[in-house]
């Protein structure tokens, strides 16, 4: 069983730059057809200062931390056993190419179901831009399959 004393633990603080080349790659990889996400002229024509980061992109930027699987190592969870259970975003400010986003994460809950056959770790991440504005909060639930 995962030690519930990890609840409240903070980890994974880092900063990532929002790069327009990476935004274009993300648009290509997701089959994006709306040009505001890959064409700067289209973005500006639609009133944006630069290419916007699409709604789930901050999750990817949080993966830029030096060891994205640190949470698993801390809790001694096998990478082969995990699934993504839930993912939530709350948005406060828009994020664009050229922004620099700082992330901090915390374990907010650990629980199990089916007599421990499934365990759940809830991680909450706050994203703050270069002006000190909180741009978004993300909550991720990781499912651990035991047995």
């Amino acid at each position, binding site marked *: 069983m995962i030690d519930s004393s990890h609840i409240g633990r903070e980890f994974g603080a880092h900063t990532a730059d929002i790069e327009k080349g*990476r935004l274009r*790659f*993300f648009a*290509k*990889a*997701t*089959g*994006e*057809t*709306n040009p505001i996400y890959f064409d700067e002229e289209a973005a500006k024509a*639609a009133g944006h200062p630069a290419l*916007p980061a*699409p*709604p*789930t992109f901050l*999750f*990817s*930027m949080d*993966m*830029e931390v030096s060891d*994205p699987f640190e949470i698993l190592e801390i809790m001694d969870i096998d*990478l*082969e*056993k995990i*699934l*993504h*259970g*839930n*993912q*939530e*975003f*709350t*948005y406060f400010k*828009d994020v664009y190419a050229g922004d620099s986003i700082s992330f901090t994460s915390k374990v907010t809950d650990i629980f199990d179901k089916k007599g421990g056959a499934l365990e759940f770790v809830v991680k909450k991440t706050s994203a703050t831009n270069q002006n000190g504005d909180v741009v978004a909060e993300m*909550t991720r639930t990781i499912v651990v399959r035991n047995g």
Partner: protein
Amino acid sequence: MSNVTYASVNVGDVIPALTKGEITRTTLGLFAGASGDHNPIHIDIDFAKNAGMEDVFAHGMLSMAYLAQLVTNWAPQTALRSYGVRFSAITHLKDRITCSGEIIEKFEENGETRVRLKLQAANQDGDVKLAGDAVIALP
């Protein structure tokens, strides 16, 4: 897409659906790189088999990105206030994901008129892979 207004929509309205292309190994390789999720279970069949899976399978966040496109095709992203999903089943190679959404609530919050969309991503057989919702502020 920016023509949507609070007064023009009703609970029960369905927004235009979005069907994506078949998920291939190339799709997953590109998404691993673009998304920064390098978990080998999505790109390395040897690792996937060792983990007891028959083959690699899609990142949940790929379908969550598809479902986000459904929303941003309908209303500008600057109006998006929250977005959440539950990953209810694994998305496999050769699946074709169709995203759909329905307005389930109209309400006022933080001085804005907002709608809640119920969202779903399902494959070609109608198997639901993601279920969730999004809140959008409409003028």
